[in-house]
């Protein structure tokens, strides 16, 4: 049952990601990305990360994508967006590069389980990062699997061992607020020049 769910949602997530890239209209792209985020929330539930699943829906699909949709509507890019006309020769190279990356990532991912946990004789030690680290003892794994991901456990770790990064995050968010406010502020000097030039029909250089 879990496998069926995984396969169905995986197909849906890949399809929505593909549609997001292919869509010309930025609005449709954003909506397909929201669908993709919901698929990832399902994966988090399957993996036992219930807290992250809720955060994924609330923060990503809720806050971030609403902000993005807001900007798309504000800018009305649907009419302003040009076709990808100047890609030319660059397009096949982009596809090839992405396919090479795909091959590498899938090869490494598929190797993960089959790779020996101990380095094989003759294999360079520098490759050790590809092989899985020796897993914790069976008791640790089973105990972890039962409780991992529950909000209480996440909070216990977040507010003890990761307290300092957590506080740094708040400073980062404060900086982002200030930066966004200053950047999006109306600046009459630059806007007037550009707007007058556009009205006169010449391209700003």
């Amino acid at each position, binding site marked *: 049952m879990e496998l069926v769910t995984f396969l169905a949602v995986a197909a849906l997530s890949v399809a929505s990601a593909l549609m997001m890239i292919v869509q010309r209209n930025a609005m449709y792209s954003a909506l397909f990305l929201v669908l993709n985020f919901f698929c990832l929330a399902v994966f988090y539930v399957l993996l*036992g990360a219930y807290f992250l699943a809720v955060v994924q829906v609330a923060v990503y699909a809720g806050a971030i994508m609403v902000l*993005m949709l807001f900007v798309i509507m504000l800018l009305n*890019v649907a009419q302003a967006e040009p076709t990808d006309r100047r890609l030319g020769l660059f397009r096949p190279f982009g596809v090839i590069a992405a396919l090479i990356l795909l091959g590498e990532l899938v090869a490494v991912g598929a190797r993960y389980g089959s790779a020996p946990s101990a380095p094989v004789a003759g294999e360079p030690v520098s490759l050790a990062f590809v092989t899985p680290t020796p*897993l*914790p003892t069976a008791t640790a794994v089973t105990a972890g699997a039962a409780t991992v991901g529950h909000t209480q456990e996440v909070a216990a770790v977040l507010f003890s061992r990761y307290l300092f990064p957590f506080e740094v995050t708040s400073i980062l968010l404060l900086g982002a607020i200030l930066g966004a406010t200053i*950047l999006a502020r109306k600046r009459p000097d630059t806007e007037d020049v550009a707007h007058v030039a556009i009205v006169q029909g010449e391209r700003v250089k």
Partner: protein
Amino acid sequence: MELPFPLPTIPSRVPTEAYLILSGILFSLGCMGVLLRKSALTIFMSIELMLNAVNLSFVAFARQLGQLDGQIFVFFVMAVAAAEVAVGLAIIIDIFRSRRTADIDDVSWLKG
């Protein structure tokens, strides 16, 4: 603290490799979006897709290792992504305001 009812524990039968492969596919799709699209907003969304692909592999590894650290990392990635979206969208709005375009080819004036 004891919960009044036991939380349902979903058996982990889907192998970690499946999640890693799916994560790789999603990451490559995001990379393809960054390389092939010219709209700044679509490129932005592709970056979000790549971040989410990495988050998925973080959570998969967290389950595999039976440790919470991966999930904490995902939490921080989400916070950084939120900050990045706020600043990035402000930049896009600023560019659109001065140039009336969201096409990254029209904003190449930083090129030497």
